[in-house]
């Protein structure tokens, strides 16, 4: 776009420099062509299609919930990264580090942003699922994307759950204890689960059997890294919370967005 006046000349000069042109491959997005290119040529924007149904644009249709969930995911990634500067996942330090964050770190609302953002993401992902359901958007050809969504929902809860432990206060420890106590009742794999007592190996000729699934070998033990929620658990949950689950979630979100496009964009009446 040619601008008038002194400023316009500067603008024209800047956008014609080799540096600018190497970064921006299109002109100002005020023509259909440049607007298409604005989306196409941008790594982040090109998650979108070029055009979409007008009905799919309406907030009353999508509630903006998927977008909000993604926004919260990004927000949590950034604030989480900042929190990692201050937090050491060990039984000795974890609690004190959080206290320090609370009391002494300047502009310290990172922990709040992270905690409230996490609550909000759990809610927004439920509401997103509800809107997808209510608009029948899971029906062909979007069945698979719904399934990816369900896995994302589970990951969101797991991310929140593993994060719950990290402040290492009474609330954290006991909520996770209550939550993981269930695992000991896993059929066959938990030591108090149905069928677990049947998994045995012979001890010696005629000398009875020993059980394979017991307190120090069942799924709960594997989850906690011990028989109780303790130092090993913090480290495990920390690694899952900061590395494992976010990586899987990021990959699946990318796949989810890709599929939204490949399945014909936001759903609409045929």
């Amino acid at each position, binding site marked *: 776009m040619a601008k008038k006046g002194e400023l316009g000349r500067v603008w024209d000069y800047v956008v014609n420099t080799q540096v600018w042109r190497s970064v921006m491959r299109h002109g100002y997005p005020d023509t259909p062509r440049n*607007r*298409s290119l604005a989306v196409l040529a941008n790594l982040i924007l090109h998650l*979108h299609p*070029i055009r*979409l*149904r*007008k*009905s799919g*644009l309406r907030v009353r249709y999508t*509630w903006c919930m998927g977008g*909000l969930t993604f926004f919260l995911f990004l*927000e949590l990634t950034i604030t989480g990264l900042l929190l990692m500067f201050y937090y050491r996942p060990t039984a000795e330090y974890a*609690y004190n580090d959080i206290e320090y964050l*609370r009391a002494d770190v300047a502009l310290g609302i990172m922990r*709040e*942003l992270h*905690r*409230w953002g996490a*609550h909000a993401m*759990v*809610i927004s992902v439920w*509401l997103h*699922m509800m809107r997808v359901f*209510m*608009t*029948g*958007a899971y*029906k062909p050809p979007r*069945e698979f994307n*719904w*399934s990816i969504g*369900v896995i994302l929902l*589970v990951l969101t*809860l797991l991310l*929140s*759950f593993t994060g719950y432990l990290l402040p*290492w*206060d*009474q*609330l*954290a*420890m*006991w909520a996770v*204890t*209550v*939550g993981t106590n*269930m*695992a000991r*009742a896993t059929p066959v794999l*938990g030591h108090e*689960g*149905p*069928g*677990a*007592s*049947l998994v045995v190996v012979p001890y010696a000729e005629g000398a009875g059997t020993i059980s394979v699934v017991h307190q120090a070998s069942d799924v709960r033990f594997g989850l906690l890294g011990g028989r109780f*929620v303790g130092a090993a658990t913090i480290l495990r949950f920390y690694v899952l919370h900061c590395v494992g689950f976010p990586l899987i979630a990021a990959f699946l979100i990318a796949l989810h967005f890709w599929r939204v496009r490949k399945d014909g964009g936001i759903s*609409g*009446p*045929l």
Partner: protein
Amino acid sequence: MPLFIKEFLNNFFNPTVYVVISIIGFVVMMATYRVWTKPRIAMGLLALMVLFFIASWSDPNFNKIVTKPDNVPIVSLVFILGFFLWLSLRQAAINDERIERGEPPREATEANDRVLVWPDLVYSELICMVIFTAVLVLWSVFIPAPLEEPANPGKTPNPSKAPWYFLGLQEMLVYFDPWIAGVVLPTMIITGLICIPYCDKNPKGVGYYTLKERPFAITTFLFGFIVLWVTLIIMGTALRGPNWNFFGPYEKWDVHKLETLSNVNLSEYFWIHLLHKGLPEHWFARELPGILLILGYMFVMPPLLAATVCRKMFQQIGFLRYNIVILHLIVMAGMMIKMVLRWTINLKYIVFIPEYFFNI
């Protein structure tokens, strides 16, 4: 709020009443969706809810729970979910009336309009982002994140609650053993959700809000989400106190509240009360009635249903899909059945084989 109303409500509510009322509320909501979603009536309902909160605010016990920082999202959830229920059912009501008149749904009138992502969508996303950043920052500035005492393995808090989004499952622990409440049910929620698109063969209702064209799917989903998931979370957060006892909305959480539990197993009902005999020695003989009942429920009822009530569904979706759907529905219904049996005849376990930790 006058004391006698508070006392009445405290005494009136218990888990049975709470669940029954939420089910009745749900049924009424679905049946009258065209009426209550009218903006004026919906505003009236909202006003009632706000009034309830204002009237209860000064009560110390109510206030303590509602203003707890970690409960803020749950209280907001009540309003947010109410709003989105209204938004979706309102649009469904409008569309259903249009469809009855032979017109296409509202969304269809603009489905062929294609708009450019830049600037239309990108700008709405930006606005959404700015608004929500502001909300989060304000929320974070005004409500500091709580931090309790350092973790202490020797000191169990009472009540000990799971993270709030799992409180519905924790509520199920009242009625089921952990292997069902903590393992089987969550697994089946996930598999059930994943199976939805593959089992729902109704081609109607893609891309617009409607209830009339997919009444079964929507009612089942909302029943699971609202009644079995969200209202149980609210109960678990606000009305379950020390020892997981039930407390009314204005009741003090007294650690010493006693609730006598005298629950009876089905085997005792059968052998002792019905046949006037002792319990058989061997677990298999003892639990045979319960085992037969469960097997009948799981494996005999589905084909019976397929031949009678669910005949149409069976023909439409076929053998495999039918069995997947019915399995999940039966488990969902089983939750309700076990609850009702507990309330009415104090039934503890239908099958009780502690030898193998196998209790249903």
